[in-house]
């Protein structure tokens, strides 16, 4: 069963609510962010960092809710969520 749907009035071209930055030096590949992101924005990629840890990577940033949970649960302080102050504006532009 799929409970989530895109709201009818959400502009399909709307900008994401937030952008995610992953610090590749700090990440130790624990996978917490990818597992608990409610929108599956993040996943564990194939790239390794200089210490050999498998890095978290962005799968689909457009789905990001800007909830900030990845930033909070990352044990390495490796994730920064950058809020997009433009996101809601582009939403309003959508013709009703």
């Amino acid at each position, binding site marked *: 069963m799929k409970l989530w749907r895109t709201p009818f009035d959400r502009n399909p071209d709307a*900008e994401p609510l937030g*952008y995610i930055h992953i610090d590749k*030096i*700090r990440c*130790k*590949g*624990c*996978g*917490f962010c990818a*597992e*608990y992101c409610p929108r599956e924005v993040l996943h564990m990629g194939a790239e390794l960092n200089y210490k050999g*840890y498998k890095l978290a990577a962005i799968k689909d940033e457009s789905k990001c809710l800007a909830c*900030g*949970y990845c*930033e*909070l*649960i*990352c*044990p*390495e*302080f490796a994730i*920064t*969520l*950058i*809020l*997009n*102050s*433009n996101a809601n504006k582009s939403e309003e532009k959508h013709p009703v």
Partner: protein
Amino acid sequence: MQIDDVTSYERSIAKYLRQDRLPHIWCAGCGIGPVLNCFLRAIDSAELNPDLVSVVSGIGCSGRVAGYVKLDSFHTTHGRAIPFATGLKLANPQLKTVVFSGDGDLVAIGGNHLIHAARRNIDMTVICINNFTYGMTGGQVGPTAPLDVRTATTPYGNFEPPFNLPWLLHASGASYIARWTVLHLHQLELTIVEALRRPGFSFIEVISPCPAIYGRMNKEPEGLDSLRNYIKRSVIKHGAGPRETAIDHKGPIVVGKFLDIDQPTLQDHLIGVAAKAKKPVKK
């Protein structure tokens, strides 16, 4: 694209974190990092004056927290975080003293200090990272390790019954007692804010994965294995009675805010006695 120039991370925690020390020493998947993150956010949300917050830790992986905060902090000898913080608080009652340490440090070698600080209701907040073991020294059995778990010193399973920390602290006289796991981060942050703001002895236990040492011996070799286990086992029950909060090997982990009562602190009693002491004694 027009983005906020200040991220929430920079707004709330970057100023309290010694970023030059990162990456930190904790293993991949260790739970101490998220708890530190929550704690720093809580200091920000509680709108405390950072100059008046001091963080004291003992020895252990959890004890390393004192070295990563850009606040007045002290890394004491093993088990002695609470007496050090007591001294700070008595010398300067304006301070917000926070003790951030592990189960081994606070409950084993420092156990006596813990119960007596709670009994005296000293105004301080204690955050205890409970990973059920002595992580830093190779995973010996600790006083919170549930029966039957495997550790470096109990290869056939732990045969010593553990402490039920909320019960211990309740019986000792604490004013505020809560427990969360590393997954309940929003609740944990709110709880720390509440504890920081309220007078009296507050104790917050955080169940936290130690994949490298404890997890490896108990079929949770990755931090994620422990987190998945917490999702299955944790039950939120605010106000749960102290008998309900025991943790065993496989059963439920009861989390929530268990106690929040107002009672005079050590400082209040001291002020009372000091007022009496000033009166001239009749002969």
